[in-house]
């Protein structure tokens, strides 16, 4: 077994660790890395983790139309979800609408989708954005699609758990309302993270490296998980797991 790994494999394994012990993870459309992580976590759980992939014809358990995912989240039946952001700031606010003074945006993003809702209702929201630049990780988002934190009297059952990028992992400190650097991926440095992050964040004294996926994880990933991912994301599966296998 080749224990070299693709950068995507590191991200998948890192995210999968965050899903351990959960009952139901939902994954949005166009999310191959979170989707693969959820399928890896399911494989590790011996099938006890339920994974709902939007837009998948075989991994969607929903039969009540587009609203069901949202209703299900409000019922407390979804433990983890993934959100991204055209911009993400240091209070974990996310912007999926655009850059500039709304509605006169200079750069328009696709829109808020369900973020303004799911961020409040899913206990463990993992922010995922591969691009880690000061353009994305900003001091303050131009438009708050969904706020990272809320007043105490606001009904809120969920919120940001961590932010995973191509360079590092942050966890989110609810009390301090700040991100804290948790680990830096192999091949990347704290200085590099600082340089490319537009917001302030906390740091541990001793900076760990994001753990590399072990041989068991890679075997699972390149076997059963790759097959399951290929159903929804054939090009991604071929590129990432195909390459890794061939390496």
């Amino acid at each position, binding site marked *: 077994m080749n224990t070299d790994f693709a950068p995507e494999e590191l991200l998948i394994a890192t995210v999968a660790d965050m899903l351990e012990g959960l009952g139901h993870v939902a994954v949005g459309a166009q999310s191959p890395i979170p989707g693969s992580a959820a399928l890896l976590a399911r494989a590790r759980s011996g099938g006890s983790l339920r994974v709902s992939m939007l837009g998948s014809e075989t991994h969607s358990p929903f039969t009540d139309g587009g609203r069901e995912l949202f209703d299900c989240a409000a019922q407390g039946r979804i433990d983890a979800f993934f959100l991204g952001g055209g911009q993400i700031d240091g209070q974990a606010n996310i912007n999926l609408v655009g850059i500039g003074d709304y509605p006169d945006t200079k750069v328009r993003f696709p829109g808020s*989708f369900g973020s*303004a809702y799911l961020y409040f209702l899913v206990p463990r929201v993992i922010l995922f954005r591969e691009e880690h630049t000061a353009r994305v990780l900003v001091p303050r988002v131009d438009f708050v699609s969904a706020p990272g934190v809320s007043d105490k009297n606001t009904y809120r059952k969920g919120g940001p758990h961590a932010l995973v990028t191509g360079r590092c992992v942050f966890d989110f400190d609810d009390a301090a309302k700040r991100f804290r650097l948790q680990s830096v991926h192999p091949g990347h440095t704290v200085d590099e993270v600082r340089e490319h992050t537009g917001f302030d964040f906390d740091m541990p004294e001793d900076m760990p490296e994001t753990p590399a996926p072990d041989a068991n994880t890679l075997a699972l990933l390149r076997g059963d998980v790759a097959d399951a991912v290929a159903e929804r994301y054939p090009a991604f599966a071929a590129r990432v797991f195909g390459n890794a296998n061939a390496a």
Partner: protein
Amino acid sequence: MTSIDDLAVRIPDGATLALAPDYSGVSMVTIRALIARGAKDLHLIGVPSVGFQGDMLIGAGCVATLETAAVTLDEYGPAPRFNAAIKGEKIRMIDGTCPAIHAGLQAAEKGIPFIPVRGIVGSDLLAHRDDWTLGQDPFGEEDGPIVMVKAIRPDVTLIHAPLADRHGNVWIGVRREMMLMAHAAKTTLVTAEKIHDGDLLADEQLAPGTIPGLYIGGVAEAEKGAWPCGLFGRYGPDDAHLKDYLARARTEDGFASYLDEFVFAPKAAE
């Protein structure tokens, strides 16, 4: 049973038009007919997002207002004519969020003027919506505010479905966002891949995925009616065609050449 052109005429200028996302049931054939007839001032509602339907109608100048949680062409990248229209301030944008759109339609389905929706509090979306407001739980079990969303009652819902029958019943399977859209709208116009012989409501297995004819204002048969998008369980998107669209729609001229080739020329040849 009627014709595609008749459906396009029955979506009047200025109508509020509910559309499904690309992965659900999209009547691209009627979208082309709408553009061909020169539809104007439409108020599109993406339930909860729009894709190619929205980008094409916007590019062709048919749209005054776009109400949606997102505009997305999925893996094909940003929506070019939508982005150009935003830059040129050619459309009025009403940004929403998926569950509020579903809930607003459910309010219309129930004939109630508004419905509470979770979350949203503290989102900048709220500041730009005069049809959303903050309220309170009248039973006092919660202190905090809760968002109230006004009912969304489209004039017309337009969808494409795998099957319809001669009674106007329409089979949409598990894609029940289209059922909700039909219940909420004043009328629903449908293209169907295939006409089912017999009564869909009388078939125990098909009935549960069927919108009753009660809600349907017109059905036209249209094989491959979702093309170049896909139709769940039937065919996938026409990848090469959609990439060609994306490449051309980057510019106004390129988009015009696309319309000439795929919207206006086929009409003229009829």
